[in-house]
């Protein structure tokens, strides 16, 4: 008997099955222990698991919303408003971070010693300080050092910086704006198609077109022509000082600005290092070979270095975007109403449903992360170099 058992244990296949069964039993026991605890605790507190609270009026105000919202709307709508606010910060944060990060990355690669050192110390100082501190610092600077609306910092008489936020002109669409939208879409589609066409042409004939400049012209000119045709169907609402505060225009709250700006400059420091590492990762023989066949410096960069560096840069870049989105949850520290502050904050406190609200918040973030990382895996698979 014992001989047989030993034989089973020594067989690799059967041993694997035994170990997995043991793991399954332990895991099952652990889960049932957790479930038992939860149900015991719920019974003791007289609670039940129910998501009906999502449909009762939230009863709290949100100072910034992209879709209409008032305090008689449901908790569900409040959560959606919060999610959209998260999206807003993430969207602008990512754009600013990318532009600034690329700029810093180029400076870090520059042969100019002074610019290089300034970029280096900027990157080191920014990324070695916690993001929460960045957010609080910028929020504090706006609230505590900018002037009151009465002495607002005036930019060209149309925009004002105050300690209650920034006021900028707000474009208002009037009749005839549809043509503008249509032309913009057409210009973008043209740009994409033209890009494809010229790539194919280059592969077939080796001839290159100034794609970037032509596309830029088209994207600026087309919508402009549309505006011209309909006699500029856009007016601007200019902020004006009325009493103690500004009226009209677009109000950007200090929380929104501080959060977007802090997330952007923090992430930019990481992006700069990613860009630098990506370009340095290309073997120097590639550059030398490109130069020796007589390519000009910008061609070396665009045709040889960047296409290869892109493969190295994009995966960590996406994870930085994901980090930025996740870090936007720190909004709660300055009172910006994002998903965590609405559903996981005030809704949680008002309904007392910790379990349900937190599970929803976790699931939503998990969905965002998993969908982005599966996109990433697909991209990696597509651009992967084939090896053994």
């Amino acid at each position, binding site marked *: 008997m014992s001989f047989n058992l030993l034989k089973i244990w020594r067989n690799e296949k059967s041993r*694997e099955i035994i*170990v*997995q069964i043991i*793991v*399954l039993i332990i*895991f099952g026991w652990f889960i049932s222990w*957790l479930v038992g*605890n*939860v149900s*015991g*605790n*719920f019974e*003791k507190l007289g609670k039940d698991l129910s998501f009906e609270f999502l449909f009762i009026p939230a009863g709290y105000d949100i100072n910034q919303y992209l879709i209409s919202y008032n305090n008689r709307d449901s908790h569900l709508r409040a959560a959606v408003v919060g999610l959209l606010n998260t999206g807003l910060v993430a969207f602008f944060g990512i754009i600013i971070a990318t532009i600034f990060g690329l700029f810093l990355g180029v400076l870090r690669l*520059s*042969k*100019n*010693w*002074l*610019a290089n050192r*300034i970029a280096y110390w900027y990157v*080191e*100082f920014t990324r*070695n*300080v*916690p*993001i*929460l*501190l960045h957010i*609080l*610092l910028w*929020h*504090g*600077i706006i*609230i*505590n*050092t900018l002037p009151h609306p009465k002495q607002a910092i005036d930019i060209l008489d149309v925009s004002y910086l105050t300690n209650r936020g920034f006021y900028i002109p707000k474009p208002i669409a009037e009749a005839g704006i549809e043509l503008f939208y249509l032309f913009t879409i057409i210009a973008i589609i043209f740009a994409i198609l033209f890009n494809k066409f010229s790539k194919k042409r280059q592969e077939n004939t080796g001839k290159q077109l100034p794609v970037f400049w032509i596309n830029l012209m088209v994207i600026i000119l087309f919508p402009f022509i549309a505006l011209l045709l309909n006699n500029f169907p856009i007016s601007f609402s200019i902020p004006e000082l009325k009493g103690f505060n500004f009226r009209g225009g677009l109000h950007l709250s200090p929380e929104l600005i501080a959060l977007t700006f802090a997330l952007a400059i923090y992430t930019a420091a990481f992006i700069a290092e990613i860009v630098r590492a990506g370009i340095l990762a290309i073997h120097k023989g590639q550059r030398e070979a490109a130069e020796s066949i007589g390519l000009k410096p910008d061609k070396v960069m665009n045709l040889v270095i960047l296409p290869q560096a892109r493969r190295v840069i994009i995966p960590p870049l996406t994870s930085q975007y994901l980090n930025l989105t*996740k*870090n936007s*949850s*720190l909004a*709660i*520290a300055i009172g910006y109403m994002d998903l*965590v502050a609405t559903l*996981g904050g005030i809704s*949680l406190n008002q309904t007392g449903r*910790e*379990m349900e609200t*937190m599970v929803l*918040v*976790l699931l939503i*973030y*998990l969905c*965002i*992360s*998993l969908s982005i*990382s599966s996109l990433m895996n697909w991209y990696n698979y597509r651009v992967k170099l084939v090896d*053994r």
Partner: protein
Amino acid sequence: MVFDKKNYAPGTHPDLPPPPGTVGVVGWLKNNLFSSLSNSILTLLSLYLLYLLIEGGLSWFVVDAVVNANDKPGCRKIGDGACWAVIVKRFDQFIYGFYPLAERWRIDTSFFLLFIAAAPLLYPDIKFRKSMLIFSCLYPFIAFILIKGGVFNLLTIETNLFGGAMLTVIIGVTSIACSLPLGILLALGRQSRLKLVKLLSVCFIEFMRGVPLITLLFVASTMLNYFLPPGTNFNLLIRVIIMMTFFSAAYIAEVIRGGIQAIPKGQYEAADAIGLTYWQTTRFITLPQALKISIPGIVNTFIGLYKDTTLVVIIGLLDPLGIGRAALADTKWNGLSTETYLFVAVIFFISCFAMSRYSLWLEKKLSTDHN
């Protein structure tokens, strides 16, 4: 150019000096700052930026700054630069939190001992490494007894008095120490041939990496009690440390997995060929190589974890940031956020920068490449 008129036999001509302007200060300036027109413009712009920074920064930070005052109006009477008085007055709190004054030597001692305990781990070729490692293993218990008290006539200190930089170090060091072994196990689990083990590891890692840390801390502070037997109630600090450990273990697992995958297949084939078991292969082949490759990534994760300890302020623990916010809530110092946050930022910068330098040093030391 100086041309020698003398005739030399081939190969005997002395070396000419390098052309003027290519060496020395002038040459350096020419090569590094003014090599082309665009480069010169960049240099001038950088110089202007530096001038603005130094001119504005120096007067605010140093010249007009006030160190001695009792409140913000007091500061403003003396100078209109930074009011560092808020830091000076509360410096003790920034370091020790609300730890009783008479007992602070215990914090100092454990902090000092931390360096002795960490030395053999951080410097591979220190003298008496073996015997020092024994102390490193004992250190967690010594530190716990020293800081928390309760035995040997030491006063018990409640954890809600913990705060300041000391709290950051406690949370940081404990989570780091616990998350490395857990991270290694998770990484091995993810690479395991056992489907079930692999599935569980992947789920755990992806969940932890997919959600923001702050939501996990909320889970720790609001929801964790539901999952424990009814009636248990344990310390918030411990709950936070557990969550931080899980969180960074997931990230470390991914870093180490990268290291494991970077090991050439031949290594495993060789290990199999000489008949090593799975655990022998792991112990002698996989981990030594994988860990070495992943050191920079691991240290980066640690730096991230250390920075993330500031998040505990949102669920009500008083790390340096929390102490700073408490100071700002005081009407005496209301509105001095820039000074306070900059001070905390500098504390974090120094420690994180030191860690990243250490990682670079270790990377160089362990490198066995031929260049």
